[in-house]
């Protein structure tokens, strides 16, 4: 049995300790917003916040989570995240949408730290989140739009 904090709730899981956090969330907690894309931390579709830092949940065994607070796309409810989600919709960023939970998680981590990010800041924070539909032009614009709305 392992206990982890997800979106503000303590959750007890009866899983093998090497089970990646992603599959705990998806198959055992029932939170499917975080996606499986590559399984080795290359694509970012599985991104979640771990104590506020965007991490690849596919590559973190649940036993390594410890007391860290995990926030998934379903738990993004602060002003920054809401502003990003509004900008995402206003600019119609999503195409297939599969990677966008991860994009929003990473963008949230960025905007919480840096309220007025430059292109270089955005590139650095989001280059680990791949989008096969290549919605990158709009992701960049939406991050800026959200930043503007938060000023």
């Amino acid at each position, binding site marked *: 049995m392992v206990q982890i904090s997800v979106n503000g709730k303590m959750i007890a899981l009866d*899983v*093998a300790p*090497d*089970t*990646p956090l992603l*599959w705990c969330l*998806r*198959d*055992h907690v*029932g939170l*499917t*917003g*975080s*996606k*499986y*894309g*590559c*399984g*080795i931390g*290359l*694509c970012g*579709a599985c991104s979640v916040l771990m104590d506020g830092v965007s991490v690849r949940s596919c590559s973190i065994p649940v036993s390594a989570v410890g007391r860290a607070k995990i926030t*998934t*796309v*379903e738990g993004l409810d602060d002003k920054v995240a809401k502003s990003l*989600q509004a900008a*995402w*919709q*206003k600019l*119609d*960023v*999503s*195409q*297939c*949408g*599969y*990677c*966008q*939970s991860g994009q*929003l998680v990473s963008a949230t981590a960025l905007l919480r730290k840096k309220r007025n990010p430059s292109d270089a800041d*955005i*590139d*650095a924070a*989001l*280059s*680990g*989140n*791949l*989008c*096969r*539909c*290549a*919605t*990158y*032009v*709009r*992701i*960049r614009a939406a991050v800026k739009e959200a930043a503007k709305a938060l000023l």
Partner: protein
Amino acid sequence: MTTRKHNIQPSSRRDFIKLIGGLTLGFCLPGSRDATAAGATIADANAGVSAAFEPNAFVRIGADSKVTVIAKHLEMGQGVYTGLATLVAEELDADWDQVSVEGAPADAKHYNNLLWGPFQGTGGSTAIANSFDQLRNAGAIARAMLVSAAAGQWGVPAKDVSVSRGRLIHAATKRNASFGEFVVHAAELPIPTDISLKQAKDFIYIGKHVPRKDGKAKATGKAIFTQDIRLPGMLTGVVAHPPRFGSTVKGFDADAALQIPGVVDVVSIGNAVAVLGNDFWSAKKGRDALIIKWNDSNAFKLDSSEIMAQYNILARGPGAIARAEGDADTALRSAKKVIQAAFEFPYLAHAAMEPMNCVVRLGKGECEVWNGEQFQSGDQMALGQVLGISPEKIKLNMLFAGGSFGRRANPASDYILECARIAKAINGRAPVKLVWTREDDMRAGYYRPMFYHTIKAGLDAKGNLIAWKHRLVGQSIGTGTAMEAMMVKDGIDHTSVEGASNLPYQISNLTVDLHSPVIGVPVQWWRSVGSTHTAFSTETFIDELAVAAGKDAVAFRLALLTKHPRHVEVLKLAAAKAGWGKRLAPGAKGEKRGRGIAVHESFNSFVAQVVEVTVKADKSYKVDRVVCAVDCGIAVNPDIVRAQMEGGIGFAMSAAKYGAITLNDGVVDQSNFHDYRIVNISEMPKVEVHIVPSAKAPTGVGEPGVPPFAPALANAIAAATGKRLRKLPLVLV
């Protein structure tokens, strides 16, 4: 645009419609509703209803005024749910916010792709093109019936009732009502036979901006993909595929796999072994613990370099003629200058972000599937054969697809059958979700075929292009599939030569021929299909000829496009917006900058792109800016057209910079995004999209943004460095 009359036969369905208290145009409700009591009633009522109403199974309006558009096409990112809803809302005069969309069930009688005959499916950038009249009609019929119902209830002439943003209005008596207030009455009326569609000047949604219908769900993690389906008692299947194409299972040892907690069963399905677990991670650990002996006697064992060498040899002799005009050989002999080049294209994986997956639940004589369903008619047929069930008993739930780029429309229904075989192997005792890992997805084949092209062309003394000989060598996508009869004619698979055999340039002596070797590597259409390679060879070679003729690349093309005004328009537009002919700002020290252009027609849409590139001292390069002009007829959703061009450019850039699936002794070298790279946000250039205003019928946009990018990039690199890159991916050495 003229207003047209559409004749629809009347019918009476009022009794069962009353039962659900809503107006349903057409009879086929989505599969997901069948489980409800109302659904069962509808299904029963459907049985006796005249088939004349079937084409209009696209709109449902509830007593709560909610308008549901039934989408017959897969939403895989291209925006089709929004596009189809736009067409209905336009003619219904619905408020955009009252409209929602749900996926249609598999039912080719109602939901066939009108450009594919009786076949239901999504692809070839046909979704909006084939639905444009059909879905506007569906909306217009609904509107007319609501107007009649309101007029009847209010005792006023129907012509005096107007509809605006979801409200029925009789101005003289200041009456104003919602759709919901009249759905019961409307359902009792005969379906009108005389429907007028709006003129373009009256459009309120078409050609304007409406937000995407899937935008909110996808920005909040709530959109449901196949990967997210979890049924009661469901098992997750992870498979061990053979290392080579064509291998089969000789034997396996499942002991270690079965020791893993959570692993429930291990089954062989002939060409793969599946481990079934209570969750993905258990099943995957079980799969990795399998010991399997493969029978490689019929396996494909060549290296990709050996395949290319064979293609090179084939290209020395003539192939099947795809197009022949004049006498290219004689003209080449008389030419002042002859130029030739050869081009190499690797296999490419689709690598959609959502690796292939599928959920199958088997019942007695029936089967239900959850899938990013792109090829309903083909999948029903294939599943029916494997399961011994009649195809119409197979229920397909069409979910959002996390990308496809062609992959989920597989003529062999490969991953769907794999899931069905696993479910069958356990006698249907539990629903099965098949989950491919990224590595499984990358190595399972169905690639964009490898191709080898040669082009030889001649210029006369004045620099006029007088001869063109284009030879292509590559696997046919259609051969050996159920589509063969449709796709392959006189030895020519149209998808091998599209973009080459319809070269738009005016050349009196022109030959295009094709070799279609049979190779044991499974191939499939990949976003823009033949144009993924034909646009590259033709548009880089025409550029090379322009240089050889001492002419400007745009002027040289324009002079040869006299019969192709739509090519001309996008070419001129892209050139003008990009500042073609003006000097590029110089790069930093040691950097070289260049600008290149390409124009290509695919799927009846016309796209030109100008690429600006910076080549660095270390020979790496960065695409700085892409200017794109597109003519896709009426742009139903201009912002989605722009999004498809932006995305098509990014998708094309991954292939141009990095894309290659290679084989070593038949084993695929690549496995994941580290060795099959796709571009990230830092590589994405500025993109400007310009849409040609048009009153012509809409054509596709999902694919046509892809083909011009790679040739425009290669032309830009040539402009910067003088080096012509003719082998994909484009690497400067």
